[in-house]
């Protein structure tokens, strides 16, 4: 006789399932006795009475599940056990996280993984600050993905992290690359010598992608959260990020990215840039070139320029870089196709900074540029569901995502808006971004294609050319495959921009004639 014993620690099955499993296990051919029971003292006493108690079973705890199979041979016992396991799997029915180790609290996780030095926190905003503080108390750097954290909590957390010499990335921080690992949303980029501190997620992603495209690589990408450069928070994390990258031997060049910061905060950040021993490229959308240069920084007007300057400062030969210049013959060709009344651009973006960048580029040429994220209240859309003149929409903003998934995850809202814009005869160009990489949709282009084909067909039927301009943000290392995503768009008649900057410029230039 052979007895096979397995103890499943802290495993609970409802009584009905246990009894049914036990009955089936006893019916397996070759099994003399099978017991599936909780490892209580009393049950062990029963096992002893029936001659099945082993030293291993004696050690079982009352929350453990004991499985005992007694069969004529070891082979039979083993085979019966495999069948019992199959029954368990069927009962469990692929519940998620079966093979993951889950820790109920940050304290227990920190105690169980002493080598861990970073916690990513994504819980309801009402409780996020408490969890972040616990992580900091456990000497963990924090990436706080959650939003809806009060500004007071953000300041307190960042001050506490600062005192402890820890990074407090966020709240509302969606992008970071730490030691080569992309956290939350990020792209697969090569390692290199350029460090990024970014207060805008997709802006940081775009710069990292362009650096990769220009042949450079990333050391670290530190996110700060979108409010870090506000008057109240005072850029605590950006300044600490600069210091961290300055202290990092692998980082040769630092890039700073943000939407327009508060004036006093820009001053503080630039003071840190002035003291920094490493070259710093500053891309603050709509930023002040003079102030940056005065601080000894390298001013960049666009994401593309920021990436290019960083790569060159890191030692690349500028002449050998394909800078992907604007395709002027294409611009002329599109201008010729658009009717005079097709005067406007409609930008539908998943990425906030990509929207911002394209909008600022449009504002250089046009006065009537509206958006849900316009700083100028005169041009901030009163009704976000209706476009006016040139309209650039950040569809990942709270205006659109309140209670709904981000368009990088669920594209349905953008599809509906796209079809709405495509019907407008005053629209010449519709610009859209498609974001690849960790955390994004598995096929962002594929889900949009049917709508693109439909819109193109309807425009053709109405006797007008509709220019659809797409920008696929990703690298050759990303999933889904970058080239395949681009090809799908091109096959559907979409014009492809090679960068966020070029996308903004092309859209603007396409409609210049009719403006």
């Amino acid at each position, binding site marked *: 006789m052979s007895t096979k014993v397995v103890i499943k620690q802290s495993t*609970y*099955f*409802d*009584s*009905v399932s*246990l*009894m*049914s499993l*036990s*009955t089936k296990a*006893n019916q397996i051919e070759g099994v003399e*006795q*099978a*017991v*599936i*029971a*909780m490892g*209580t*003292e*009393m*049950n062990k*006493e*029963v*096992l002893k*009475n*029936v001659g*099945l108690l082993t030293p291993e079973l004696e050690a079982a705890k*009352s*929350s453990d599940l004991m499985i005992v199979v007694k069969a004529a041979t070891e082979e039979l016992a083993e085979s019966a056990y495999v069948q019992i396991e199959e029954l368990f799997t069927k009962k469990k*029915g692929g*519940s*998620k*996280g079966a093979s*993951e180790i*889950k*820790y*109920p*609290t940050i304290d227990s996780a920190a105690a169980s993984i002493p080598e861990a030095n970073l916690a990513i926190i*994504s*819980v*309801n905003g*009402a*409780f996020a600050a408490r*969890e972040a503080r616990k992580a900091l108390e456990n000497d963990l750097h924090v990436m706080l993905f959650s939003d809806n954290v009060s500004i007071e909590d953000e300041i307190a957390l960042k001050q506490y992290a600062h005192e402890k010499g820890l990074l407090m990335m966020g709240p509302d921080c969606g992008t970071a690359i730490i030691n080569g690992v992309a956290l939350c949303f990020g792209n697969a980029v090569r390692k290199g010598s350029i460090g990024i501190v970014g207060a805008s997620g997709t802006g940081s992603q775009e710069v990292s992608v362009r650096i990769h495209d220009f042949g450079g690589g990333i050391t670290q990408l530190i996110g700060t959260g979108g409010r870090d450069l506000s008057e109240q928070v005072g850029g605590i994390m950006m300044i600490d990020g600069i210091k961290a990258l300055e202290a990092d031997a692998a980082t040769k060049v630092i890039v700073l990215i943000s939407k327009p910061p508060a004036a006093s905060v820009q001053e503080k950040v630039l003071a840190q840039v002035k003291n920094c021993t490493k070259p710093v490229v500053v891309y603050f959308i709509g930023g002040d070139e003079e102030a940056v240069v005065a601080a000894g920084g390298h001013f960049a007007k666009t994401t593309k320029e920021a990436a290019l300057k960083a790569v060159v400062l890191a030692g690349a030969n500028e002449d050998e870089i394909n800078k992907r210049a604007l395709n002027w013959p294409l611009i002329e060709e599109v201008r010729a196709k658009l009717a005079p009344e097709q005067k406007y651009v409609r930008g539908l973006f998943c990425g906030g900074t990509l929207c911002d960048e394209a909008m600022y580029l449009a504002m250089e040429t046009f006065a009537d540029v509206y958006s849900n994220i316009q700083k100028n209240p005169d041009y901030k859309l009163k009704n976000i569901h209706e476009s006016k003149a040139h309209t650039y929409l950040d569809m990942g903003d709270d205006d659109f995502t309140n209670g709904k998934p981000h368009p990088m995850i669920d594209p349905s809202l953008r599809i509906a808006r796209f079809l709405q814009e495509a019907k407008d005869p005053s629209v010449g160009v519709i610009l859209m971004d498609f974001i690849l990489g960790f955390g994004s949709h598995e096929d962002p282009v594929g889900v949009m294609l049917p709508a693109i084909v439909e819109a193109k067909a309807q425009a053709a039927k109405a006797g007008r050319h509709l220019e659809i301009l797409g920008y696929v943000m990703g690298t050759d290392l990303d999933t889904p495959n970058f080239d395949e995503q681009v090809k799908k768009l091109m096959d559907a008649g979409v014009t492809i921009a090679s960068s966020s900057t070029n996308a903004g410029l092309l859209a603007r230039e396409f409609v210049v004639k009719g403006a």
Partner: protein
Amino acid sequence: MRIQALSGDADFCKKLASSSFHGFVHSVFERTINLKCLDDNELYTIACNKLDNGPNTLVIDLPSLSGMEVAEGDPVYGKGDELIVGSGVFICMRQATKWEAHLPSYPCDIDVLRENVAFMKQYVDAKGKTGGMKMSSRPASLFERETSRMLNERAEALSIELAKGNSESASEQAVRLVGLGPGLTPSGDDFLVGLCIVYKMQNIPCCLSCRFFEKVVESSRELTNEISSITLKKAASGKVRESLVDLLRCLTQGSREELLPALEKVVGIGSSSGTDMALGLICGLERNLEAGGNVCLPKL
């Protein structure tokens, strides 16, 4: 995913309303999810709408919980009228009816009770589920046979001590039942749940000392699993699920027509859990019927 809570244990609702709930998912089943609260170390339960109310339980408007994206270890937060499980499940308590277990008093007129207990005994004999306290004529294994034998032997020993009115020895016998039985809530525990609530009724003829209940609760922390232990703890303070309260009410004052569905509902619980609880009720009630009269508390 937003789900409406239909009803909830009044204490649980009060806890959520007055302070924040902070814990994690302890265990996930098709019809229930247990939550461990880190503030008081107790287990709380989210139950599907096919289940009845119970202590520390919220009944939500879903027929099954298997589609909920919830896993063991997921964080749980509660505040005000919302309980947040994992990253995407929001349970709204705003419209939940508050429920509280109110055990009936031991009746002055014991004839109805005597008749109903006799009927229940017959019913359980005929239709009760085997595998626990009720031994199967063809047990699936030696283990099952031995478990049932030990359960019966120990329940009998407990019953004898109860008949003698000896709380101390009764508690010793009760402890020997804790954790006995293969299920998630071992049969010995279920039996004690039924027994405890009989002795928690007001005006019960044979009182048991507080020490009896304390001893059962204390021992359960070591001798059985957490889920069963919290059920015993609550039962020891007179708090059990709604169907068991209804059955006890029907037993004390209900007609046969009222008793039968209440009995069917309890016997239908779990594998043999309902039968085991019913047998605990029978044991407790029979001992008290034998003692006769209200000898513990003076009648007003």
